[in-house]
């Protein structure tokens, strides 16, 4: 029997971690059922993702301290207002540590779509959010269809075309 080699074992473990780590990223949720969650909104209402089954849902993970979120959210507000009546729901999951910072941001930027507080970061962990913002599009059947990391100017055009495609299904 060959002697036990710690180096080989270490290499195998490292390789396994290297393979497993990318699998844990949010983009790997694509095609899978969106993990369900229930969070309190800034308005005080509890919102559960699975209750929107049958509608196209966009989940936007954001933080008041993230520059791209400040650019993206007013644009998302417009998209939400346009497609709301067609069966589209936009949920913003806040990653700040305090409710006050999220409230101040929402008031300053005039955000009206539901902003949910994930103070325990449970949903953030569940969706393996690595950067801010992350935008996840869930179809009518509850499956994750598109995942976008970060925000670049003009990305809202991609969002719109994806939303329209999902609404047509």
């Amino acid at each position, binding site marked *: 029997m060959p002697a036990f080699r710690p180096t080989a074992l270490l290499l195998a473990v490292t390789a396994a971690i290297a393979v497993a780590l990318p699998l844990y990223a949010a983009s790997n949720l694509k095609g899978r059922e969106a993990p369900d969650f*229930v*969070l309190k909104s800034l308005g005080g*209402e*509890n919102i*559960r993702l699975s209750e929107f089954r049958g509608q196209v849902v966009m989940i936007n993970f954001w933080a008041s301290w993230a520059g791209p979120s400040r650019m993206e959210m007013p644009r998302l507000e417009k998209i939400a207002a346009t497609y709301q009546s067609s069966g589209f729901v936009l949920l913003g999951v806040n990653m700040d540590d305090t409710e006050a910072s999220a409230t101040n941001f929402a008031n300053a930027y005039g955000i009206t779509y539901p902003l949910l507080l994930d103070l325990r970061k449970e949903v953030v962990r569940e969706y393996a959010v690595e950067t801010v913002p992350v935008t996840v599009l869930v179809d009518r059947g509850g499956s994750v269809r598109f995942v976008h990391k970060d925000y670049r100017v003009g990305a809202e055009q991609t969002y719109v075309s994806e939303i329209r495609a999902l609404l047509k299904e």
Partner: protein
Amino acid sequence: MSKTSRSILAALLLAVAFAGAAWPQDPAAAEPQAATSETPNADAATGGDAAAGSATAAPEEFRTLDSDVQDLKKEVLDLNKDLFVLEEELLFPSNTQVAVYVSLDVGTFFNVDSVTLKIDNKEVANYLYTAREAEALVKGGVHKIYLGNLKVGQHELVAFFSGKGPHERDYKRGATLNFEKGVGAKYLELKISDRVRKLQPEFIIKEWE
């Protein structure tokens, strides 16, 4: 061996050889001949019947296939149920099982928002109720908030209820129960009811036998 006996043996062998060659022709070879000779007429005569037969056989076949698929589906469902029961039994054996339910009676003075559950000073459940779920509770629904395992002996259960109380005020109350976990499953109910005389909600933890 003499010449005579050799010739007799040769004759016997020849006879056996002829008989062997002739034998299979009788039952098997004769039939195909007859069949082949009859084929043109038989085709002409039975062609329509065969077509009609296959037309009736096809839906029958589909029906059988459909019933097979239905049977298979039923078997899968049964298997799934058995697996679920097995899983429940393995993960939460009845000897150590503790289940906690939440119910709401009337709900005029309390609109439930969340319930936090602590057993032996350890948080085991924290559930946020959406408007739909709260409505379901008002309509008589019972929610299983916790299912777990506990050792036999004394335990303490603390439940914190938060929501909107009378006059839409934020309301937070706690209820405690010390209970004895014996052998066998334990069922507890967190009951929210209205105390009409005081116009206040009431929080009770009830033990089920």
